[in-house]
């Protein structure tokens, strides 16, 4: 009996280790195949066809897209969250706003990409551009910023609000000066997670922002823009040579590194936030 228990326990343990192993195998494989190609000129030069040059425009393009995405999604998301938590009356309008934001979170990214293509690219005539891509990414992460900000605002004790109101501050002054000040690490964590999601998203960018192989830096927000994920996609599916595969590994490694930095920063912020809120 005792032996059976420990056998099962080892089985359970090994299945959880498989998840860890999957992460390590993928990251290690990408690292060992990509590390060889990464040097300063790979990071700072423009690509030339599939096999030559570097990925500078791709890195800058990805950062620009994420920047536009955040400029759109963060103000709108945080404002919506403040309204939903602090102001919203308990009525049908509020309930349906919540419902639709939840819906948006459930829409597959490819569908949001199609919407960006028909609405922004064709209907509004923005073309295949940085602006279209960034805004469509913004639609995609908006529900996450709303949700994360709501959670963060809700964790601020109500007594803070009461204390501020009792000191004579108006409702907005209390929210701005007290609630947001205490909630901001949580909000930033949520934004960072959304940022990681936007950075790795391929389908949306492929449909709305450009083909990924552009060798120039965007001159305006209405130019098509290159990005790391689409670059990887192009090299992986249309390169068919060792040189282009190793470039794709290099770009993957850069993408994963950017992502890991963002999510470690997010975890760090969250842990500090939790320990502070638990009275540490």
């Amino acid at each position: 009996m005792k032996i059976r228990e420990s056998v099962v326990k080892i089985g359970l343990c090994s299945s959880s280790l498989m998840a860890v192993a999957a992460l390590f195998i993928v990251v290690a494989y990408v690292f060992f195949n990509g590390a060889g190609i990464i040097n300063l000129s790979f990071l700072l030069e423009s690509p030339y066809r599939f096999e030559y040059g570097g990925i500078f425009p791709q890195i800058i393009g990805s950062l620009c897209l994420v920047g536009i995405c955040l400029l759109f999604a963060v103000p709108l998301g945080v404002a919506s969250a403040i309204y939903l938590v602090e102001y919203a009356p308990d009525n049908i309008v509020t309930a349906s706003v919540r419902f639709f934001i939840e819906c948006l979170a459930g829409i597959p990214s490819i569908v949001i990409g199609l919407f960006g293509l028909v609405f922004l690219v064709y209907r509004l005539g923005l073309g295949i551009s940085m602006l279209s891509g960034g805004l469509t990414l913004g639609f995609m992460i908006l529900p996450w910023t709303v949700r994360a900000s709501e959670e963060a605002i809700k964790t601020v004790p109500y007594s803070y609000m009461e204390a501020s109101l009792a000191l004579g501050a108006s409702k907005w002054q209390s929210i701005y000066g007290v609630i947001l000040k205490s909630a901001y690490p949580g909000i930033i964590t949520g934004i960072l997670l959304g940022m990681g999601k936007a950075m790795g998203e391929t389908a949306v960018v492929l449909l709305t922002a450009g083909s990924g192989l552009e060798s120039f830096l965007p001159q305006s927000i209405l130019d098509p823009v290159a990005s790391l994920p689409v670059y990887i996609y192009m090299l992986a599916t249309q390169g068919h040579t060792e040189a282009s595969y190793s470039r794709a590994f290099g770009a993957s490694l850069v993408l994963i590194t950017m992502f890991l930095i963002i999510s470690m920063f997010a975890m760090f912020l969250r842990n500090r936030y939790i320990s502070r809120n638990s009275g540490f």
Partner: protein
Amino acid sequence: MNKVNVEWVIEKLLFISAISSSFIVFFIIIFMLHEGIPALAIGWDFFFGMDWSPSNNQFGIFPIVVSTFVVGIGSLLIAAFIGIPAAVYLAEFSPRWVHSIVKPCVEMLVGIPSIVLGFFGLMVLIPLIRDSLGGWGECILAGWIILAIMTLPHVISISEDSIRAVPKAFKEASVALGATELQTIWKVILPNARSGILASLILGMGNAIGETMAVLMVIGNPNIPWIPSSILEPVSVLTSIIVIGINYAAWGSMHQHALFAIGIVLFAIVAILNAITTTVIRRGVS
């Protein structure tokens, strides 16, 4: 008086933000329907037609829908088979230090960009399958494995939370009656955590069906899809057919309308799965 006005304006601005956030969904639905309706209007031949061949004006998506479910359900079974035991271990047995290593890794796994996972699959899994099992290499099996890796973290996290949510008293009562730890887990903890685990699986399925790039790169995407008869055959799924086709579809052609209609079908499937998840969770709570 002035201060009251500022407050009023700010409240209205916040209200407008919240409303416009939810309006995006309306816009998405309206535009998708507007572009998709000409193809949806084909009716029976669209939903149950067996031939997808845009160059011959054939737009039957039935084989694609079947393949999508085959890929989604298979990957979910793999993820459940690994993820639920892992969740039990993390919630019930893991020492603190193991938990503090495994949990962040699981969270990181969510975020590995899908394109990188797909590329990994293309470079590693496909040659492996081709050499050991034969066939093209790009096949349903490869899609299952890649999607299982993507779904696994969701299954583990939500299942672990719902196992932890089972009141300690239940477990203590069971142990006090002389049950072993494993008997307790099997007979007491898992039945009580059932709704959360089920919810994680349905949600995982929704994610798997909506996932695009990783799947696209490993399943082969034959130009004319058919209903697969073996897991070593290449298939097309709803998401991959959109990405591959959208470059070739002339704007305003029936092909383009059909791709948007596929987007609507995808949206509907995922929305239904999400609605089921919500109901399951709600029923579990009450």
